[in-house]
């Protein structure tokens, strides 16, 4: 066995017969949830063929040159470099953390490449890392011949940062797609391209999150609730609210049975608005803001709009994913709690998003709230919605929805 250290590079044929299978195993000892992924990238360092992203959702590459065995903290790959198409120039073996924790908190990361009796081993303790949530453990790259680089470095942003890093920005022309994708759903990207081309750049980030959270096949109703209290005026004028609509529409297109986003505004009173779709989303924010605010009453009465939303989806056969935008100053703790508890037996998931405000009250204590049948709500706050990267945003918006979905299915709520 040869111990290698971070930064090590050498030709692989010094150790192995690269025309045969090499086993790459990656083990993490730690208390978080670990995922491993192998990206087969092209000369430009891009994942131009998604078939060469091997992970728990796709456990082998197209010709089985890369096969994933095991998962989570103990992952192994079987790799035959000589069978890879020539355009795949590098295999990047990564480890990422799903949920809380950083690589700095692990006890140990070990990566072993082996073939028969030959073994190369990289062993690192947590103190080799800091706040990374995703690291490139090793890379096999082709430069004349295949080399190994013990990178052992990464990104604070997790798997999504890796996907961003390797994301095949360049659209892959026809040849690969379509056939392997689910035939029932027209691809989100194509729908946006034809129906709302301004939003097409959101398709990829959303897709990444959907795949990550295993939501690609999910059908749900999607609702958007917008705070129209007076303190939101700035967010309407600076385009934040329109941006919220823009980024929510693709979710509705993806999840919704009819591609429509159900929309509510609330001040002191709540009002259901015409549903939003790819055709009218640019008009979802009223021109005459003052009139809207005045008609709904200056204030923020969350319980009023929550009641309307609950009435709409109560007993529905489809789950409802409700994005609830507020800029804070949330009062009515008792009423909100009661509505959350009452609706926890309904197929309604509340994703509260704070935008540029403060005083989110009970929303900030959702995780410790008891009395609910299932945990049916999540909250996060953003200082400036417009400046949040779409991938990051979708990742946060969809963070707890999948677990809730699993729970309500198990409990026969849907």
């Amino acid at each position: 066995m040869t111990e290698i250290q971070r930064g090590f590079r050498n030709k692989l044929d010094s150790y192995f017969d690269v025309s045969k299978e090499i086993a790459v195993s990656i083990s993490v000892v730690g208390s978080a949830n670990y995922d491993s992924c192998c990206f087969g990238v092209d000369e430009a360092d891009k994942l131009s063929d998604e078939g060469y992203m091997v992970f728990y959702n796709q456990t082998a590459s197209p010709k089985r040159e890369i096969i994933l065995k095991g998962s989570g903290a103990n992952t192994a790959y079987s790799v035959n470099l000589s069978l890879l198409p020539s355009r795949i120039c590098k295999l990047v073996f990564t480890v990422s953390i799903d949920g809380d924790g950083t690589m700095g908190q692990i006890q140990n990361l070990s990566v072993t490449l082996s073939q028969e009796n030959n073994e190369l081993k990289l062993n690192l303790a947590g103190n080799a890392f800091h706040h990374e949530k995703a690291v490139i453990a090793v890379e096999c790259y082709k430069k004349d011949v295949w080399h190994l680089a013990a990178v052992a470095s990464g990104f604070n942003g997790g798997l999504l940062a890796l996907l961003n890093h390797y994301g095949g920005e360049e659209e892959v022309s026809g040849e690969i797609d379509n056939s392997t994708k689910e035939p029932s759903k027209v691809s989100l990207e194509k729908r946006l391209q034809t129906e709302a081309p301004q939003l097409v750049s959101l398709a990829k980030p959303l897709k990444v999150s959907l795949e990550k959270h295993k939501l690609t096949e999910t059908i749900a109703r999607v609702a958007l609730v917008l705070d129209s209290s007076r303190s939101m005026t700035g967010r309407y004028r600076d385009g934040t609210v329109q941006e919220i609509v823009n980024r929510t529409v693709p979710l509705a297109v993806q999840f919704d049975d009819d591609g429509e986003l159900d929309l509510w505004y609330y001040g002191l009173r709540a009002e259901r608005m015409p549903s939003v779709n790819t055709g009218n989303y640019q008009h979802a924010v009223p021109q005459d803001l003052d009139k809207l605010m005045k008609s709904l009453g200056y204030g923020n009465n969350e319980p009023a709009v929550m009641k309307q939303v609950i009435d709409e989806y109560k007993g529905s056969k489809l789950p409802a994913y409700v994005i609830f935008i507020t800029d804070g100053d949330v009062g009515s703790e008792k009423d909100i709690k009661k509505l959350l508890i009452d609706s926890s037996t309904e197929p309604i998931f509340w994703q509260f998003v704070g935008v540029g405000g403060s005083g989110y009250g009970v929303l900030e204590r959702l995780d410790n709230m008891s009395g609910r049948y299932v945990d049916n709500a999540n909250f996060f706050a953003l200082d400036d919605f417009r400046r949040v990267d779409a991938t990051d945003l979708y990742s946060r918006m969809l963070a707890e929805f999948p677990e809730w979905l699993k729970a309500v299915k198990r409990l026969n709520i849907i």
Partner: protein
Amino acid sequence: MPISLQKGQKVDLTKGNAGLTKIFIGLGWDTNKYDGGHDFDLDASAFLVGENGKVLADTDFVFYGNLKHASGAVEHTGDNLTGEGDGDDEVINVDLSKIPANIAKIAFTVTIYDPEVRAQNFGMVSNAFIRVVNANGGAELIRYDLGEDYSIETAVVVAEIYRHGAEWKFNAVGSGFAGGLKALCQNYGVNV
């Protein structure tokens, strides 16, 4: 068109470049594209050595702590602490006409500052290069891209210029060493 060299290649520097006296040596590199870890601080240095491959005095070692050689022939233009940006990260000016006669060779090196503490090595450095530019007019004469052939070394002798009769030649050395700047100093006979 500059001459692009491979590791180990030697070419004429002054021959064919009549009147060439003032040159500058530009060295560049890219470091960590990843989060976490320490910042990289790479340092370029020059060792002015005699026939025996050793410095004649400790001051023949030109680096961030001794920016100018007594002869005025070699001057380091200063330390770049991050290696950010394209182009030369550090520049060393050389006036061939002022190099003392007892100096047979000048080695240009790049070392990683504080490599043990920062747990860094040249396996983490990419796109390193050295180029020789005619200071008079700015024409690039020679370029050597080191490639990503380095591993856990912490010092690289990038290239040398050396006397060949009355002319100067350039050698694309590209050799990596463990032990950082200290090892190089010992190699060239600098007391540290």
